[in-house]
């Protein structure tokens, strides 16, 4: 990526770098030309990396004290909270860290939707990102089962039972997942094993995500291709690192607010009751970050249909780069899409809200309307708006103002190619 070949100054450095070009990589990462107009919505990549590392480090320490056994798990969590030095801090960071992770990833995803970061040539970055998101949901779900409280147990029962909706082999698959004839000790031990594995898979995908990002370079609020390096770019270090650090600190203040002053507000009180297969909680609800999908699942009267729609809601995002027909990336220059973007945000929030409510009456109606709109947005609105929308003039570069009259996007692109 960097335009000039990097040569280490010291002889030893050169010797090492010729054999393993780690120093070249470091030089690439610090010099990486980044659009200078990135706003604070772009700081969530760094924040997410911080979240992942926080979860891995606190998780490793928790695993030293946790016991993955149906009879002992709940007590071992209380042991961590009471007897392990700063165990309460480590556990609260880990449990609230999951919520913070999802908060950041949702902002990151919606930023991508707003500024068209998923569009050519960044489709692979987007798809790897979605794979990370899927793994995050799997890790979070399994992690929530580990304390073996009532919501852990019944959440696991509801989610694993979804697979029984598959025709013919569904029941066998569910039994295979459980390792027993109900959610039981074998389920807990395998969830623990997978919960420890998945973060490292995510870490690997994060490397690919960043690698794929460094090929075309960052998108930016204007959404135009920029020449790199140029007057439109700044080196990643120190300009972006300091800005990311500042945003991360603000994020950590909110994070600390939850950990120290409201550590259980995002969880469910029933999870402080030990799992009891004989007593079903009045309302089984997943953690807040899975609620929109839970609402979609419950909005369909048929179980298989609900499962298909729920997974469809995620998998439709994989083809998003080909559903969006607009050539203009950033919603800043797309007056119609901009409106629909905010409607989608509200739609997802409404789905999340009704997901926490009982599936009846007005909530069920809202869930159905929300679900239908969610799919309409991707299947109908995006392709149609892309064709019909009259976009606003896109500037040729970040530094240059819009040329009067002539500067539509294709012109800008041609000009850029000429340069």
């Amino acid at each position, binding site marked *: 990526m960097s335009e000039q070949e990097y040569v280490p100054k010291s002889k030893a450095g050169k010797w090492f770098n010729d054999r393993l070009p780690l120093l070249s990589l470091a030089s690439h990462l610090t010099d990486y030309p980044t659009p*200078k107009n990135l706003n604070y919505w772009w700081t969530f990549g760094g924040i997410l990396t911080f979240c992942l590392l926080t979860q891995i480090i606190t998780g490793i320490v928790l695993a030293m004290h946790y016991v993955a056994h149906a009879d002992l798990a709940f*007590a071992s969590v*209380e*042991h961590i*909270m*009471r007897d392990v030095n700063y165990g*309460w*801090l480590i556990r*609260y960071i880990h449990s609230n860290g999951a919520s913070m992770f999802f908060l950041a990833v949702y902002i990151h995803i919606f930023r991508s939707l707003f500024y068209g970061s998923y569009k050519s040539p960044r489709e692979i970055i987007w798809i790897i990102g979605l794979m990370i998101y899927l793994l995050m949901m799997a890790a979070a779900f399994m992690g929530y089962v580990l304390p073996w409280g009532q919501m852990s147990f019944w959440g696991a029962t509801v989610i694993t039972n979804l697979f029984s909706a598959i025709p013919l082999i569904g029941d066998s698959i569910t039994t295979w997942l459980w390792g027993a004839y109900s959610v039981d000790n074998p389920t807990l031990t395998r969830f623990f094993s997978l919960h420890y594995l998945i973060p490292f898979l995510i870490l690997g995908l994060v490397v690919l995500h960043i690698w794929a990002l460094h090929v075309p370079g960052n998108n930016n609020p204007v959404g135009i291709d920029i020449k790199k390096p140029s007057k439109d770019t*700044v080196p990643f270090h*120190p*300009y972006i690192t*300091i*800005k990311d*650090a*500042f945003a991360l*600190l*603000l994020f*950590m*203040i909110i994070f*600390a*607010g939850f*950990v*120290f*002053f409201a*550590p*259980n507000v995002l969880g469910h*009180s*029933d999870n*402080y*009751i030990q799992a009891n297969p004989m007593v079903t909680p*009045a309302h089984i609800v997943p953690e807040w970050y899975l609620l929109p999908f839970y609402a979609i699942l419950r909005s369909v009267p048929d179980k298989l249909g609900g499962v298909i729609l729920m997974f469809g809601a995620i998998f439709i995002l994989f083809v998003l780069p080909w559903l969006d027909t607009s050539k203009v990336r950033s919603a800043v220059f797309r007056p119609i899409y901009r409106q629909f973007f*905010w409607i989608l*945000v*509200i739609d997802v*929030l*409404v789905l999340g*809200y009704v997901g926490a409510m009982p599936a009846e009456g007005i909530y069920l109606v809202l869930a159905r309307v929300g679900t239908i709109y969610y799919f309409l947005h991707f299947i109908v609105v995006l392709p149609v708006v892309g064709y019909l929308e009259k976009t606003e003039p896109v500037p040729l570069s970040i530094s240059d103002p819009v040329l009067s009259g002539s500067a539509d996007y294709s012109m800008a692109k041609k000009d850029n190619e000429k340069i």
Partner: protein
Amino acid sequence: MKKFKLFFCILLSLTIFNTLKSAEQIDPIKVDWSFKGLLGKFDRASLQRGYQVYNEVCASCHSMQYLSYRNLGEPGGPEFSEEEVKAIAAGFEVTDGPDAQGEMFTRPGRPSDKFVSPYPNVNAAAAANGGAYPPDMSVLVKARKGGANYIYSVLVGYEDPPPGVTLDEGVYYNKYMIGNKIKMPNNLSDGLIEYADGTEATVDQMAKDVTTFLSWAAEPELESRHKTGVKVILYLVLLSILVFLSMKKIWSRVNPEI
């Protein structure tokens, strides 16, 4: 920015909608607990009285299996003196063993022992209480929606059933309990116990004290959590100011407007 206002309006209306809906049930009484808020601390005397209520009233049915007697002397808790903790622990018979002959034996409790449970197991506890298991109280405050307010409200919420409501044998009416039916009888009455510190043992006083004690039992780290939290956030705020100023300076080289 207009979009954000819309967004917050919707969030706000959803919240209000939610509050209206849950108003159908009786909300627990809101008590101004000393341990709420950013700098909240437990009232030491109330914790000690609360332990007395637990020990003399609740402990005959409710276990607290995750607490040890030593916890009663630790900072941030009731902070009984070392001698008092030893005396409290020694007042319980603990089953230990097996000894060299393979026999189990009983001995006086030590501070390192867990609280002795009133029943050998959950089934025995349920059988002795009309089929309803008296829940373990170690994390009870965290395990109930409404937390301390809810526990306190249930303790003072017993009343005669309204006309038309019939109760089975061994079931009591409580206006704050979910479903209003509770198998625990009203165990608190004025002057039931004699507080060691001479405080008048009214039902309200005992309910508040024991709820304070249970809140500490559920969150023994609360005081040090609050203290650490204030320090951590102050540190983060100062550091963000420094980083913000550095950022301004660095970015002034390319673009004064960031």
